[in-house]
């Protein structure tokens, strides 16, 4: 106990080590943190680079339907898709995705090819 006393005293007067959520907000994520990914439909040309390299198979490309289907619950936010994208159509945002009850599936209809032509 005597050995622990300095730590006890320091903690007694030192204030909280944790954030008083929900009275105070949680800390902001770091600038380069990998929170979630977002697609820019205006830039995507459905080349499929992201889907081929995704280790979790979270992205499906359907060229006939002009669709990009993103299973957010499969995504491991490894940033490989963003690195593979030649058109900068995938952005990694630092903010975490909110918890969900049902698995979210995003369906995108890219317009990048129409814009290029």
């Amino acid at each position, binding site marked *: 106990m005597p*050995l622990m006393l*300095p*730590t006890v005293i320091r903690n007694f007067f030192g204030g909280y*080590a944790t954030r008083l959520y929900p009275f105070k907000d949680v800390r902001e994520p*770091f600038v*380069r*943190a990998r929170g979630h990914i977002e697609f820019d439909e205006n830039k995507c040309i459905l080349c499929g680079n992201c889907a081929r390299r995704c280790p979790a198979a979270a992205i499906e490309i359907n060229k006939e339907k002009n669709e990009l289907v993103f299973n957010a619950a499969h995504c491991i936010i490894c940033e490989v898709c963003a690195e593979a994208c030649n058109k900068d159509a995938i952005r990694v945002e630092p903010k975490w995705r909110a918890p969900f009850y049902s698995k979210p599936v995003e369906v995108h209809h890219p317009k990048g090819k129409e814009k290029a032509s």
Partner: protein
Amino acid sequence: MAPRTVAPFGPQHPVLPEPIQLKITYEDEKVVDVVPAIGYGHRGIEKACELNEYPKNIYLCERICGICSCIHGISYCEVVERLWPIDVPPRAKYLRTIWSEMSRTHSHLLWLGLLADAFGFESMFMQFWRIREKVLDLLEMTTGQRVTQSISVVGGVRRDIDDEQKKKCIEVLREVRKESEALINVLANDYTVKARTVGKGVLTKEQAIALGCAGPHLRASGVKEDCRMQGLQAYGDLGFEPIVEKDGDCYARTLVRCRELLQAIDLQLEAFSKMPEGEIAVRPKGNPPANEAVYRAEQPRGEVFYYAKGNGTRNLERLRVRTPTYANIPSLLVMLPGCELPDVPVIVLSIDPCISCTER
């Protein structure tokens, strides 16, 4: 003679975060026999690695274990690089070393907290985990995520640490070292802690070698063996010396990890001061050639062994991983018989069991 009773310790037990079962036979309060049973968390990762393309396996290998995920990812990349072989740029080697040691720092802080919790020192548990949070924040700041960092790629690393981050890292690591020293002073000298650890679960040097133990568990029994002594990555430049204790009991294992924690912080600080400028990755050409390679790395829990066999395609023909806890579990059969029943959690925890690593 008192009647013998067999009781299951696990797979669900407050002291075990992961599922392993020990069938303990005891007389009165004395353990006489132990039979471990593993296989509750097998996921077939080695087979899955054969079915995946080789760059995708990095993320799979990282999920072998949550605590040493960074070193698993790095080890996989290192073994695949040896198939070509690819020479990784020096800065990438230093960055890999820094992240490996950062991962060791948070793993040892986690373990020290768990040990305190195992003998009922709740406040000490909180103190260690509070410090650990700072290290996890550093990992998030530099790599992007707290636990599965996904930082290594075949040929180097994915991110660099800029000067601003480096300054912040050094500042926080010094703080962590100072705070850890204060807590280690309590842990190493407190009467109650000593009463629960000194002379408990003794493993002699000869037994440790015969049973093929690894890591801090082996070094606590007086064997100078550490994979970082190979001088791979940047360890050769950092003047690394393994930490060895002689007694081989729970107290010695605690001391080894305490000293390794401080040493890991020193290694990071030294690596930051010596880190050269330059490229952080090279691009591998083509697929891994038909070749075989092995790689040994020192994880927080001991030696991890990676074997890879390429066949010229984008898939590996075989990937084999040997993890340290699998090597350390047999030592429980020597350490537990003869001990008192209340000492079982402390002795089991003293090998730092990581079951998700063991079962893959």
